[in-house]
């Protein structure tokens, strides 16, 4: 016999009420675990993904939407801006760097971002295989994209217009070649497909949206005999299957790719005149030369241009404030559950001590001291707490993992349940504290038990 088996044996006396008490405590703890895990990871991700981005400049609209779409790649863009209108931003004295982003296409739900190498450098991204995108129609894919879609260097992928549902318009005639795969960074870049801005433009041009004659003629005149070939394909009733096969075959051979005039993309940051015609960015990620610019630069953009500027830090703070109210409510609910569980455990122990008066007296006659009884009761409280804690942590982490993998957005952001967050130590302390507090009065009852009196009343 030992103290554990003795305490546990009392659980078997009232298995249902014991199970209920443990469950109650576990639910309280689990709900807080879920909140803490989500909150912590969302906060971390928000901060990590916005690192080095002082401001986002893009088309006017909701600043929050602009930040969500161009920093976190979670929302639709507010619109596009012309390359010309981006120039004053890029040359503004307060701006150290302005990385252009051209959005609009995706690959199986992963956004394709036309940008510059500086964008990858922003997240300290490195390659795990292959090389960075270079030629038009070459892409470098993020770690999660490569992993989930089993992509390897040299694979061909097809982009889809919009954000990835199966019904979306597919650019089947514009295959993209994977030139490299990035090592995991734990940032938004893991779930992106990066390429040059020119590739995004070219993919759109190649396809020829809905017979826009003006665009096509300019496109045809500007360059690319092959693209005009595609043009004719699309006019022949959008024969995607045939043209896709045709292009994929060409692409498989290096010479096929080399034939493309567009492969001679200009170095990042330098825009050749050829590409300037009616070219658009979706947003610019701006890094200031000095923090002082935060006061003046957004005002300049918002007042002097048709564009808008927004600070990711400010917008996400606004977002988390809005969410915070809901989270606080949930947290309060979790704490309420724990308080109710504590009361319930206290009542269970308190009544148990009354019921066990005679047992306690017998233990004393067998040689147990008052202190021994106190230890037993405290241990019992701790066992309740520990069982509730373990079950709660298990439930909380499991539920977070299940929730995160069911909610597509959370899954994309990379939230996991298999993570230990430092706030959870607070929960451990809280649960053990509950065990101690609930057992204190019952322990005192046990301490006070008068053996002779109890035996005499039996």
């Amino acid at each position: 016999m030992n103290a554990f088996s003795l305490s546990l044996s009392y659980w078997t006396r009232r298995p249902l009420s014991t199970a209920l008490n443990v469950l109650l405590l576990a639910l309280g703890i689990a709900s807080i675990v879920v909140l803490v895990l989500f909150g912590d990871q969302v906060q971390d991700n928000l901060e990590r993904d916005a690192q080095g981005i002082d401001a986002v400049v893009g088309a006017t609209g909701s600043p929050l939407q602009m930040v969500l779409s161009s920093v976190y790649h979670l929302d639709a863009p507010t619109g596009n801006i012309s390359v010309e209108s981006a120039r004053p931003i890029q040359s503004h004295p307060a701006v150290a760097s302005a990385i252009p982003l051209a959005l609009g296409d995706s690959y199986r739900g992963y956004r394709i971002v036309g940008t510059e190498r500086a964008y990858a450098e922003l997240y300290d991204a490195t390659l795990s295989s292959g090389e960075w995108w270079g030629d038009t129609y070459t892409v470098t894919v993020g770690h999660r994209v490569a992993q989930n879609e089993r992509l390897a260097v040299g694979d061909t992928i097809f982009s889809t217009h919009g954000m990835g549902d199966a019904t979306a318009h597919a650019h089947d005639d514009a295959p993209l070649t994977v030139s490299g795969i990035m090592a995991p960074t734990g940032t938004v870049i893991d779930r992106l497909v990066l390429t040059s801005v020119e590739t995004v433009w070219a993919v759109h041009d190649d396809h020829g949206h809905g017979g826009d004659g003006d665009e096509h003629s300019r496109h045809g005149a500007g360059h690319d005999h092959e693209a005009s070939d595609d043009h004719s394909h699309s006019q022949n009733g959008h024969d995607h299957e045939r043209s896709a096969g045709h292009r994929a075959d060409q692409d498989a051979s290096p010479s096929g790719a080399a034939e493309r005039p567009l492969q001679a993309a200009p170095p990042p940051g330098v825009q050749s005149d050829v590409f300037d015609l009616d070219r658009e960015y979706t947003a610019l990620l701006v890094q200031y030369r000095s923090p002082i610019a935060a006061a003046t630069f957004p005002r300049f953009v918002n007042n002097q241009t048709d564009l808008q500027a927004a600070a990711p830090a400010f917008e996400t703070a606004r977002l988390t404030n809005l969410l915070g109210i809901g989270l606080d409510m949930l947290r309060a609910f979790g704490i309420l559950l724990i308080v109710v569980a504590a009361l319930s455990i206290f009542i269970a122990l308190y009544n148990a001590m009354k019921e066990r008066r005679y047992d306690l007296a017998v233990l004393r006659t067998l040689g147990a001291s008052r202190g021994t009884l106190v230890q037993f009761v405290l241990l019992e409280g701790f066992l309740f707490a520990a069982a509730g804690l373990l079950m709660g942590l298990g439930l909380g982490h499991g539920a977070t993992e299940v929730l995160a993998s069911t909610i597509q957005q959370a899954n994309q952001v990379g939230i996991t349940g298999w993570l230990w967050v430092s706030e959870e130590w607070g929960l451990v302390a809280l649960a053990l504290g509950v065990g101690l507090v609930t057992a204190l009065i019952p322990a005192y009852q046990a301490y006070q038990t008068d053996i002779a009196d109890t035996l005499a009343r039996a």
Partner: protein
Amino acid sequence: MIRLNDVAHRYDEKTVVALPDLQVAQGEHQLVLGLSGSGKSTLLHIVAGVLTPTSGTVVVSGRDMHTLQGAALDRFRGQHIGIVFQQLHLLDTLTVVQNLLMAPYMAGLPQDRRRALALLEQVDLIEKADAYPHTLSAGQKQRAAIARAVMNNPDVLLADEPTASLDDERAGQVLDLLQSQAKAHNATLLIATHDARVKERFSSTYTLSASLATS
């Protein structure tokens, strides 16, 4: 051995129990007779060290009980005194053999499971070793309680109304068992009862009269 000299206990202003002097040598069997309220329980509680008398000297197994206090007294009780109650009293949530092992555990002695099983064999309960008390009859419970009381080889074995809830046959078996176990362990046996059936078995009786119980 047990020795009481000038022992009296004052419960409150009105109730004072004075006990006649008593001396029981090691290994002797002593019957304490008396009606309810005559001070039987007071006597047993004082000998067991769960009640400290207001005055007088109590010596159990060569030890003056006044010199022991708190945890030391509890440990002394656990190691040297075995107690059998009128109402069982086994712990419901533990099996019979676990109940027996509680005696050495609470007394801070090594838990010898083989000895527990051997004792259950002696009291004819070996097949109930892993059963829970609620599945036992009153007589079986009392036998299990006796086995637990002698688990630690006590110097003194106290029994409070051990036959009260039993029929003649069972009562006889329980008394046989108490006496044989006390003999086997050379323990001083003190049985308190008002059961007349017990009386004929004992040569030496110590009678508490009701008049002593109040002042």
